[in-house]
């Protein structure tokens, strides 16, 4: 916030600013302790958040480099057809071994390779959906909050209808109607996540609009667009970052739910949620790893991301943690 205030002061003549600084007693030498610097300092001190970052790196690197880290093709059955080998169906659902680190699935495909490629889908959904949420929620929230009046009423009417609608059901409808391509999965997951973002931004703008520094900017004749982008928008960045950091694991969870219900990406592609689904159907008579591994992968990823989100929130808004 300190940054923005100095921006307001930059408008009058340099002389006036200097006098103001003197009478207000602004210390000259001290570096402005900026919001970002403080936030970074607090974040780095947060052990759980750093643990989350480390775990996420451990997960992300093999998932991104799936083609390098995989040992078999994730879509091909790995049957041993040599003479004397067990019958093909007996080779399915192998337990974890040197050869297949996580075992194999019902078509004797390597679970390690499928986990890597499924992770791609899961993580991709988390990130891309949040980008979509930002693209839709932030401008709508800004416009709604800043202009108010009829524009606000109209936008909030739409937002509230979407808000009242159980988003996951909306997603289910989308996926059943349009089939499960990755694009529709992204839309289905994102449909329920943008209204809260729009509402968050609108609320932020509404409260920021009344703040002294915005009134000051207005009083000295700063243009609307400039107030919006130089004074209001930068101040919503903290809450946006925090919201996105919690939104990514949320999106991953929703996609996992669709996968579990069986309406996510079409085979042979897969996601962690779908692997849970496959495991759930077969775990009672087969190695439990086929269910446990993808379930734990989802849990661990979401947990690490939430640790990071928690750290970010405390970093940007220390009030919430230490009174």
């Amino acid at each position, binding site marked *: 916030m300190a940054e923005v205030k100095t921006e307001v002061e930059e408008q009058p003549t340099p002389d006036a600013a200097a006098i103001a600084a*003197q009478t207000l007693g602004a210390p*000259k030498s001290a570096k402005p302790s900026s919001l970002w610097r403080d936030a970074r300092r607090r974040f780095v001190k947060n052990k759980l958040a750093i643990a989350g970052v480390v775990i996420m790196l451990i997960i992300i690197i093999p998932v991104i480099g799936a083609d390098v880290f995989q040992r078999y093709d994730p879509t091909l059955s790995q049957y041993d057809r040599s003479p004397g080998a067990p019958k093909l169906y007996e080779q399915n659902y192998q337990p974890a071994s040197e050869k297949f680190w996580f075992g194999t699935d019902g078509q004797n495909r390597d679970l390690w390779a499928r986990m890597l490629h499924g992770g791609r889908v899961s993580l991709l959904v988390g990130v891309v959906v949040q980008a979509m949420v930002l693209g839709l929620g932030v401008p709508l929230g800004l416009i709604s909050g800043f202009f108010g009046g009829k524009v606000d009423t109209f936008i909030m009417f739409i937002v509230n209808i979407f808000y009242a609608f159980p988003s996951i059901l909306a997603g289910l409808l989308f996926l059943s109607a349009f089939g499960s391509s990755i694009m529709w999965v992204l839309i289905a997951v994102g449909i329920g996540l943008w209204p809260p973002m729009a509402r968050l931004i609108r609320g932020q703008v509404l409260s920021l609009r009344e703040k002294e520094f915005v009134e000051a900017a207005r009083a000295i004749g700063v243009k609307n667009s400039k107030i919006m982008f130089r004074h209001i928008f930068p101040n919503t960045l903290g809450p946006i970052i925090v919201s996105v950091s919690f939104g990514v694991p949320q999106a991953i969870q929703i996609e996992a739910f669709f996968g579990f219900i069986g309406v996510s990406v079409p085979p042979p592609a897969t996601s962690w949620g779908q692997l849970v689904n496959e495991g759930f159907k077969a775990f009672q008579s087969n190695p439990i790893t086929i269910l446990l591994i993808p379930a734990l992968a989802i849990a661990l990823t979401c947990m690490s991301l939430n640790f990071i989100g928690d750290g970010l929130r405390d970093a940007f808004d220390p009030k919430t943690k230490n009174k």
Partner: protein
Amino acid sequence: MAQPLLEVKNLKVNFKTDDGMVKAVNDVSFYLNEGETLGIVGESGSGKSVTSLAIMRLLPSPPSRIDPTSQLIFRGRDLLKLKEDDMRRVRGREIAMIFQDPMTSLNPVLTIGKQIMESLKLHLKMTDTQAKSRAVELLKLVGIPSADKRLGDYPHQFSGGMRQRVMIAMAISCNPKLLIADEPTTALDVTIQAQILELLKKLRSELGTSIMLITHDLGVVAGMCDRIQVMYAGRIVETAKAKPLYVNPRHPYTIGLLNSIPRLDEHRAERLVPIIGLPPDMITMPPGCSFEPRCAYSNSGVCQSKAPQLREVEAEHNSACLFDINKESPTTVNLVEKVKA
């Protein structure tokens, strides 16, 4: 001389922060006699509010820590040695407090009647009906119209000034010996400020309560206090009876304060002069006088190395300056340039 009602001896309060230890109150000693009104003046961060909260033992710990050598003798007992249960019987009953912001100091979800009756029932063991009629009495005393009808109202249904009256009614409900008023008028309009001060004066003469009035505004304490002490950076820098302090301030900071407020009773011969600069960083205090960097009378070399102690400069008039300064003393430095440097 009889023992004072409250004697604060060597009070030191530190706050632990991420950046280091903040010496919020740094070896402060003073007293307050029965029936006396003491004004404590200083800018924010000077330690005046911390002092008052320390007396009430309401400072959260951690991060705050009161030095074990400190003593707060109230009616012969050291408050710092009391058990928490005994201290609770002092709070509200013997020492009551009014806070700065009447908007936030009342619980928004309880009726004011409930909030006033609470102390009556707790300390005086009154029944509901007794407490209720006493609450009406108190509201009348502090000048709230149709008091009996307003007991069931919530704080947000009162104006700021009226809320401060409610706060005062709550504070005096158990006839405390000492009333600590921490910036009671700061959050109010000027006209309301005067009314609240009038009310405090009236209550003082009717109830004989001692008052500790904490403010950053020398104008507020002027007509109200018997004695005034000025605090700067966790220390008392000057203390005197009210009139001598105004007429003949002996500390550069007090002189600066008086020069920076407009006065209606004098011809305006000179421009108002602000005190330039900021109070010192309370973590790394300068070894010498803490006011030196902003002082127009400082003597380079001496003031930066030697910390001045409070000493008697006239009868019942103490100042913490190494030199005998008064309004007529010539300034030694150009402050604007000094601060720039």
